[in-house]
């Protein structure tokens, strides 16, 4: 891994009686890092800290080499940051163009012409030029997510923090998203959270799996896939020893867990590795 652009060291955070993060430590470098984990694992809390909108109770963060607790350094981070929150709010009476223009002003772009050019550029990146003059309230949920993504791309930031950017996007839009985010990864740091293991497998150089406010796994997609090596097999029925099992489209049951001798082992996927790591918690969430 190249020199870290994000350093997170023993970070803790509590909200009242709830502990959101308990001693999170990991580094990330340029390229794309994916945060995986069930709801309530602490992903959003961590991403909000990386976006400088939330301070840790304890522990240390350095973003792009700066300390977000120091006002001048925080400003320097924000000047190079793009952030898409999990639930981006909009001024619904604004058009898509006006909303992104509004964020561009908050990003200190005061020259109208240059700002408008940049607004058009990011709208083009997310294929929304055709609806730029439509009110936000008239846009579909997927379009709004793309507006939120577009505002995060303003100014071509060096650090992109995206909280569930693919939620609500259709398959074509998700492919387009992958295309957009995978550009300029040689000198840009992207950290995103998602529930879509396919997105992580397709995009991320590094993966951090979180559970109950802690880092459960940190490594490459291949390393996460390897967690399930020799532990995925197909059978006619749900196997007794399987931790997780489901009937596939061709009728066979895909079992994950400790394989019995002579089991028909198959190549694991990244999702198998993830499910084995977070286990019952992920399965109960999927059933909900």
């Amino acid at each position, binding site marked *: 891994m190249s020199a870290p652009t994000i350093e997170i060291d023993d970070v803790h955070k509590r909200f009242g009686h709830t502990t959101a993060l308990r001693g999170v430590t990991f580094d990330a470098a340029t390229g794309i890092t994916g945060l995986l984990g069930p709801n309530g694992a602490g992903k959003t809390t961590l991403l909000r800290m990386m976006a400088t909108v*939330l301070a840790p109770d304890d522990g240390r963060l350095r973003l792009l080499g700066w300390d977000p607790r120091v006002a001048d350094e925080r400003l320097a981070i924000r000047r190079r940051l793009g952030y898409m929150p999990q639930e981006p709010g909009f001024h619904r009476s604004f058009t898509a163009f006006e909303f992104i223009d509004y964020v561009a002003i908050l990003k200190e772009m005061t020259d109208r012409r240059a700002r408008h050019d940049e607004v058009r550029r990011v709208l083009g990146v997310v294929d929304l030029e055709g609806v730029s003059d439509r009110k936000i309230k008239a846009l579909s949920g997927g379009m709004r997510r793309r507006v939120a993504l577009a505002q995060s791309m303003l100014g071509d930031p060096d650090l992109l923090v995206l909280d569930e950017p693919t939620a609500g996007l259709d398959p074509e839009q998700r492919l387009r998203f992958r295309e957009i985010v995978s550009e300029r990864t040689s000198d840009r740091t992207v950290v995103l959270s998602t529930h879509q293991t396919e997105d992580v497998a397709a995009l991320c150089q590094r993966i951090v799996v979180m559970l109950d406010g802690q880092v459960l796994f940190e490594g490459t997609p291949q390393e996460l896939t390897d967690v399930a090596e020799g532990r995925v097999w197909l059978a006619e029925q749900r196997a007794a020893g399987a931790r997780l099992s489901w009937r596939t489209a061709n009728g066979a049951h895909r079992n994950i867990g400790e394989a019995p001798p002579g089991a028909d082992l198959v190549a694991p996927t990244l999702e198998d590795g993830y499910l084995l790591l977070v286990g019952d918690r992920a399965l109960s969430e999927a059933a909900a």
Partner: protein
Amino acid sequence: MSAMWHADAEMLTSYADGEIADVHASSLEAHLLACERCRDRLAAVPASASASAPASQGSMDRIWAEVVDTIDAPNPGFVERTLIALRIPQHVARLLAATPSLRGSWLIAEAVALGFAVLAANTATGRSADLALFLFLVVAALLPVAGVAVAFGPGIDPAYEVGAAAPMRGDRLVLMRATAVLATSIVISAVAALAMPRLDAIAIAWLLPSLGLTLATLTLGTWLRPLVAAAAVSLSWIMLAAAAAVSTQDRLAVFRPAGQLACLVAIAASAVVLAHRHIAYQEGIAT
């Protein structure tokens, strides 16, 4: 559309040479958008000895980009157009247009609240006339406080989270919006005051309290969320006004000269504390 005036040759030459002041350039560009005759004359302006041909071409490109931008960018909404007409810079107008308490619906609600108070004051007689006047003054003084409470902050501003991660100073945005809300409320209250039965000093006795309460809310807002700060300030002041009325047997006691003096002191004290505490809005890190 016919133009009201035409640019003179000197102005067009300066513009083509890129030597015109920005403020005049903007004005001329706005005119050129509507005036074909001046566009043709500008196109015919020869490059001066000091200006190279590419510079002239650059000027034309600039005009064309301005034309495209003006046509392509959506027309701003009513609030934004009004602010721009009041000579507020366009980028500031856009930031203010996102203020919930500067929307038409909010302003109408303010006017309706004051309208009821004015109606009560005009129909009340005897002892109830003082009560109606008291009601009007209290409502007028508290309007900007309510407006400030819903002008910014988490849970109020839908794009707060995105804004908090942006480099623009939070205190600048807060003060900008609070000033706009205060100014708007003062205008609405002043218009309402003209409809009061007594057009004397007491009809504008809400002015200093409204300034003091707004500043107190902004100051307290450096510790608390704006909505909580506004509620605390409003309740405290209503209780103070009621206590003053009971103790002096004068319903309007808090609006009399002694009350106005107290407001001036509160304004000065709040301003001093706010000047020291405004950094809290700048922090932008929620906990």
